């Protein structure tokens, strides 16, 4: 009994010991900096950039409110709210678009014969390993005024002047959906791959229509994969800043660009740090929801 207990403890000690290099690196270069961000959010803004070491709630205050320069009245910061709203809206739209394209794609891959399935899966992952910047530039070539879509439409005589897609929310949506599509397909594929197709037969035998089979049998069973895909696309969309900056231009900002602005021209590090913390909290809450949802469906995983 006692020996077993000691063994148990040495197991744990070894586990910690072996993990130490990884943990040290991560705490030093990943967790530590995050704590410093949280700390900076409650300090006072420096004159040009950086912070003064005085406690202040101004960074957090300015996340939602603004103070009039002349009469000091406090009002909601409309500009910030519209940026939050645009970020959430675009991220939800991106998630839905990738789901509509991703579900049939994952289904298509999972129903291929086993020997070619790996090939199709590989095709999905290649763009994923291509640099984000390159993929965004590729989309730019497609949607800009002199780009492929407009040139083709004009040559075909369908339009006389190019449609302005660049620097609109639509361009950002197209870009983000393009960039994050593989992140939706992969978890959906994993879920469909484990799917027992006899259940569909059973559904059809019981006179279900195709739509009923999809709604009543397939979607509930692959739900963990759907939730995983939603989270995997929604979180990076919300924090994206490269794609919205290149495709949306300076005017159509998302939270990521707004944060970047505070550390650059805005020179308000505390506000930027507070915004980063808010974004981080949103992500953590969605992670908790995800973990809850997936552990309810699969108590052993």
């Amino acid at each position, binding site marked *: 009994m006692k020996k077993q207990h000691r063994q148990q403890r040495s197991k744990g000690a070894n586990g910690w010991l072996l993990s130490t290099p990884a943990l040290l690196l991560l705490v030093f270069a990943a967790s530590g900096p995050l704590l410093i961000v949280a700390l900076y959010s409650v300090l006072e803004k420096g004159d040009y950039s950086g912070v003064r070491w005085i406690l202040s709630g101004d960074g957090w205050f300015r996340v939602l409110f603004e103070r009039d320069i002349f009469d000091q009245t406090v009002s909601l910061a409309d500009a910030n709210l519209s940026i939050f709203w645009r970020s959430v809206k675009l991220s939800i739209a991106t998630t839905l678009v990738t789901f509509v394209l991703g579900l049939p794609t994952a289904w298509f891959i999972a129903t291929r014969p086993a020997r070619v399935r790996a090939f199709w899966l590989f095709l999905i992952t290649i763009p994923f390993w291509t640099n984000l910047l390159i993929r965004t530039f590729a989309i730019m070539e497609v949607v800009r005024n002199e780009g492929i879509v407009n040139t083709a439409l004009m040559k075909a005589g369908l339009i006389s002047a190019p449609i302005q897609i660049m620097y609109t929310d639509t361009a950002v949506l197209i870009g983000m959906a393009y960039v994050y599509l593989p992140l939706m397909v992969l978890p959906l594929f994993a879920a469909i791959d484990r799917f027992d197709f006899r259940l569909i037969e059973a559904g059809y035998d019981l006179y279900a229509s195709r739509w009923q089979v999809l709604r009543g049998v397939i979607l509930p069973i692959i739900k963990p994969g759907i939730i995983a895909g939603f989270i995997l696309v929604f979180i990076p969309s919300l924090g994206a800043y490269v794609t919205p900056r290149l495709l949306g231009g300076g005017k159509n900002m998302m939270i990521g660009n707004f*944060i*970047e602005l505070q550390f650059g021209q805005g020179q308000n590090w505390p506000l930027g740090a507070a915004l980063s913390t808010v974004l981080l909290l949103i992500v953590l809450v969605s992670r908790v929801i995800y973990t809850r949802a997936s552990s309810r469906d699969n108590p052993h995983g």
Partner: protein
Amino acid sequence: MAKARSFDVRTLPGFTAIAILSFVLLYAPILTLVVYSFNGGNSVNQWGGFSLEWYVVAFNNEAVQDATARSLIIALWASVISTTAATMAALGTTRRGRFKGQTVIYIIINQPLMVPEIVTAVALLIFFSTVKVATGYTGLGYLILAHSAFCIPFAYLPIRARLEGMDTAMETAAADLYATPWQTFRYITLPLLMPGVIAGAMLAFIISLET
């Protein structure tokens, strides 16, 4: 009649068409970019004939050379460091049952995957600008450190997957034959683990190279 012939429970109407569309959408922009890199003219609107001119320009550009060399050095170091740390952590956290604090280790290791990119960028900017002022060291060291930390989960996950699928019988046999723990690791565990380690190292290298 046609329905009776081709009715397959695995097909859903429109799914294949949308899937093909997805693949086309994924590849068309990248292929265009690749094709136009061989363009002789300097605008995407006109095709000036096939030419390697832009590659010559890129390779002869000193800034491009420096940047490429720097990226490779950082990626090489980062993948070596992160894979070593990740292998140790994977050995420490698998196949020994549950122990106290395991969840904490998982959370810390997977943290870089969960934090949005802009928050990571901002956090590192603040942190290293403070450290730079404090120590006076400005060099690749910071980048290598940050990349190593960021790549750990990408190396850890495939290695752990490989370890979890591995049988412990061989190691038990080695221990029975009086192999020291190090010998067991060097001649039994590591060779068996190699595919996972290579996959992890390659992932870490790619991730580091493109960040």
